[in-house]
């Protein structure tokens, strides 16, 4: 068998990463014939593909987000289950990002490429942990690809929230967290810290929280945010925790909450000026992405001589990876959105 270099059979197109000998896209940004999806976030999973291949969990998430008929041919596979698409063998490995998130391992003519999608290495009880797979090329994200980004232990960050609740016990704490993954992780972290009171959730979070619960993630008692009359504060929420998507916090919606402390859980909160610009009272550095150190830890663990870097701060990651002896270069993709992390 003649070994084919990965750059000869994988290429970047306008629609996304394309695998020639399998005739499929990975996380394409428009509707395609065959799409293999790493995870359910909106900048990776879109509706309308004729055939969608992903984990069962990711398919379930897409069903919640886009409806039953988001694709005529959804095809779920379990982690580790091999599937041949034309000439390419693929299998999925946990990425530790959100429920159902997967790295896609591609094998073709003697070489192996891992498309990591988004991933993290910190402990998260709401999804399976990232598993390193040896490969020739590792395609990495670089969302937090600057050495200023080092995520502290999420447990420590949650302690800050609990301390604030003690100090401002008559105020409502509203936590801005992305509806898929971050919200459920925050709830699980609170439960692990012994917070047993009901947690109030914005309507946009309900279906995904239910789905997590169906998948065995214990989130405790969740209640909808009670509807109050226009511009009337809801006294029942004093001293309570409310979770809402970040967009709702910037919106009129927040006015129904009594004297809210605005909490935001995101890796960007590491930068004080960013947190201030968003009028956050209590920033929590909790991220579902790898931080600077985790990126390089991962490159070493997968043992790939080549690293292709995409969406994020490519230049710093490439610079540092080259210094560490990897052959690193940028994989230019379009359509990825910073706001969803």
């Amino acid at each position: 068998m003649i070994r084919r270099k990965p750059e000869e059979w994988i290429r970047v197109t306008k629609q996304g990463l394309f695998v020639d000998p399998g005739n499929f896209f990975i996380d394409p940004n428009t509707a395609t014939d065959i799409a293999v999806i790493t995870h359910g976030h909106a900048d990776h999973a879109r509706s309308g593909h004729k055939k969608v291949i992903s984990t069962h969990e990711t398919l379930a998430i897409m069903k919640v987000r886009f409806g039953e008929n988001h694709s005529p041919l959804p095809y779920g596979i379990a982690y580790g289950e091999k599937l041949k698409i034309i000439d390419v063998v693929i299998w999925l490995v946990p990425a530790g990002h959100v429920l159902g998130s997967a790295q896609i391992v591609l094998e073709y003519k003697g070489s192996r490429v891992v498309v990591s999608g988004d991933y993290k290495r910190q402990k998260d009880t709401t999804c399976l942990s990232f598993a390193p797979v040896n490969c020739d090329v590792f395609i990495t994200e670089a969302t937090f690809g600057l050495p200023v980004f080092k995520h502290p232990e999420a447990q420590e960050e949650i302690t800050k929230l609990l301390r604030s609740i003690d100090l401002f016990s008559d105020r409502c704490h509203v936590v801005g967290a992305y509806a898929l993954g971050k919200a459920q992780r925050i709830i699980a972290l609170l439960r692990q810290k012994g917070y047993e009171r009901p947690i109030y959730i914005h309507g946009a979070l309900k279906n995904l929280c239910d789905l997590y619960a169906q998948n065995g993630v214990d989130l405790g008692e969740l209640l909808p945010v009670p509807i109050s009359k226009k511009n009337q504060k809801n006294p029942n929420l004093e001293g309570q925790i409310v979770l809402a998507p970040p967009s709702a916090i910037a919106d009129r919606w927040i006015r129904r909450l009594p004297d809210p402390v605005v909490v935001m859980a995101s890796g960007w909160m590491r930068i004080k000026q960013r947190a201030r610009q968003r009028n956050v009272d209590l920033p929590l550095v909790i991220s579902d992405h790898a931080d600077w150190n985790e990126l390089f830890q991962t490159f070493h663990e997968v043992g790939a001589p080549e690293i292709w870097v995409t969406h994020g701060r490519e230049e710093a990651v490439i610079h540092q990876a080259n210094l560490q002896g990897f052959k690193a270069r940028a994989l230019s993709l379009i359509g990825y959105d910073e706001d969803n992390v």
Partner: protein
Amino acid sequence: MKPFSDLLDSLLYTSSRNAKVVLLADYFKNIPDPDRGIALAALTGNLNLPNVTPTTIRRLISSKVDPILFSWSYDFVGDLAETTALMWPSVSRDLEWPRLGDIYSKIILSRKTELPKLISSWLDEMDETGRWALLKLMGGGLRVGVSARLAKTSLAEFGNIDVTEIEEVWHALELPFDDLFAWLDGKTQRPSMDDRAVFRPLMLANPIADKELSGIKPDDYALEWKWDGIRVQISCNGAERKLFSRTGDDISLSFPEIIEAADFKGVLDGELLIVKGKEIATFNDLQQRLNRKKVSNKLISDFPAHVRLYDILFDGDEDLRQYNFAHRRLRLEQFFQEKTLSNMDISELVDFKIYKDLSNLHYSCRNLGLEGIMLKPWGGPYIAGRPKPGWFK
């Protein structure tokens, strides 16, 4: 340093004034001396540390990290102290942090050339937030949205007293404020001000509306000119003599001739003016004398300072503020006669009745080189702030 850096971090994000007061009061309650006193000084701009320049910070960090990665990171973060704090290699999570009090005393005791090494060792011992707080502390200006007034309000909240009580003693206090905190903790009496020349918060006037002006009865109010200088307080007690601005800034050094003339024990309220011969000079002339730590004899003879006295707050140890203006005015005249104070005179009382139309007078004052008029109810005590009812201008 950990509680202090946590406090700065929380204050930075807190926009609500009430929430800031809660955070500060909680800090003052739980943190021991002298740390909380040093924090108070830092927050109110009274901690005079040698400044660490951006150049020094750059030099420190460039010996620790890749300069290319640093410059990309700095571009992204946009703040030198924060970028440095975030990129500084963490040595160990378990090291004991230096205490704010230790940091302060070591900085004060060490030579300037030793500072970078000292800072570097502290940066090693702390986490990102601690490093950021230290660099801000040393960079001059914390910029966490706390005014001196807000800090005092928080002290009052913590001590469960009125903020005017804090204002009363504030100018007699010094780093590390242990007597203040002992008092607020309820362990001792209010700090004694027996031998100190302290600032007594001023009574200020409310602007008068035309409607109100027509309702003023000449028998109820004293009418004075409002001179175009700066409002001051002369406070003398034993060995100490001080000239304070309206906000309580000590401006004694700029006006040595006033300090020399103030040979009395008591507190007087007046307007600082430049008087050449018998003419009051312009505000511009007065500005020549402001904000100087040393003044030459020539400057003093070219722009001689003068205080036109409005009121008396203390005669010796006797607090006169509870008495009405009629009483205080008499006491002021008596006081002035007994002491024969140079470089001072008493503000003239204007005969009301000759001015039939007050509102006309109000406007025409400006043409006479006056700032306006002051109306003070004969029956009113001296109350700090801008009370209503109170004085009109």
